[in-house]
């Protein structure tokens, strides 16, 4: 947690007989350095600026609740009973081509692969693609920058695991904390 301030978190107001209050969950992080991103790799920001509402401990499959990086190929966001609800994930990055040596072979798209699955549920591989791969243009013949956006709203149920990874290779053009090259957020909007 390198956040410069400690965000206040509303306390559950389960007063006598009343309904339980909303439990916010906010994960926000930024990309502050220039780096080459490889296809099908985990989304690993340089700096986490908000990280509230994560239930402590591990879930049913041993995965820690909240933002966790199981390995270098994918990110996992495990949801607890309290964390479950409607979520919005948003990502914005300033990108340019992956490399200059093989311009025509440089992938010309960028994206986030997002899926959600619930261990033990029957039906296929228990995964569903819930957003498209956001394919913005990266010019293979120049160093021009492009802004790529991805956003989606969906429901995460208790013990569901939200997975996401980069969908292609590119260069992420972050410079510093004061001039970041992108931001990713995982926000619980409502129950």
């Amino acid at each position, binding site marked *: 947690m390198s956040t410069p301030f400690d965000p206040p978190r509303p306390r559950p107001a389960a007063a*006598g007989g009343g309904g339980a209050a909303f439990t916010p969950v906010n994960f926000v992080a930024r990309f502050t350095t220039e780096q080459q991103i490889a296809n099908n790799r985990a989304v690993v920001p340089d700096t986490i600026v908000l990280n509230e509402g994560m239930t402590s401990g591990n879930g049913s499959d041993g995965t820690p609740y909240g933002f966790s990086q199981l390995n270098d190929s994918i990110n996992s966001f495990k949801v607890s009973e309290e964390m479950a609800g*409607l979520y919005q994930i948003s990502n914005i990055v300033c990108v340019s081509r992956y490399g200059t040596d093989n311009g025509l072979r440089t992938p*010309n798209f960028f994206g986030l692969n997002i899926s959600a699955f619930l261990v033990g549920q029957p*039906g296929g591989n*228990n995964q569903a*693609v819930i957003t*498209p791969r956001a394919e913005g243009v990266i010019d293979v013949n120049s160093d021009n920058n492009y802004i790529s956006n991805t956003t*989606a*709203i969906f429901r995460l*149920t208790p013990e569901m695991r939200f997975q996401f990874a980069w969908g292609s290779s590119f260069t992420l053009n972050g410079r510093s904390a004061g001039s970041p090259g992108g931001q990713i957020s995982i926000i619980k909007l409502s129950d």
Partner: protein
Amino acid sequence: MSDFPFSIPRRSNPVAAGGAAGFTPVLHAGVFTSAGQQIGSRAIIPDSVVENEGITPGNGTQNIPYGVSTPNGSVSRFKVSEEMAGIYTITVQVTATAYSANYDHGPTVTFSRFLFGRAVGNNSIPILNTANQDGATSQTQRYTFIFSATTRLLPEEQLEYKWGDSFFIQGSSSANPGGYFSIAKISS
């Protein structure tokens, strides 16, 4: 819920004795899984509905079904019941190429609210009208466009939405869709 591989349980409303009514979530989401030309001023109709919870059964005023309906090809309607009313975010994300060599504006959208019988202008309240200029897309390069707006929808009001300009949507399969669409109630 046409192709979602598992049924999503919906949390119950904690309307305990003496307590405040709980939040009633509403979420409709769809994906565009095929490639095709989308025509301007036509309804936004995803290929597959992946989430559809919180829709009140039955019809509202004007005998229009609650939830998403496409009475014709020119506009999509989202009729809101008393329980469904609240603050909504509507989001459309598409991967697009130009409609044709001579039409490279890229996609645009029109969102509006409509309450039958209300005496305001033509009874339609604009929410979002986007505009792209020439050259926003090409026929060979894929661009991603996101349109999003947040508004309050009142009981019996209709959210109406449609494409603005024509474009070519680049969906290829359910595993690699070309777009995502959602209407989400985020608070009461």
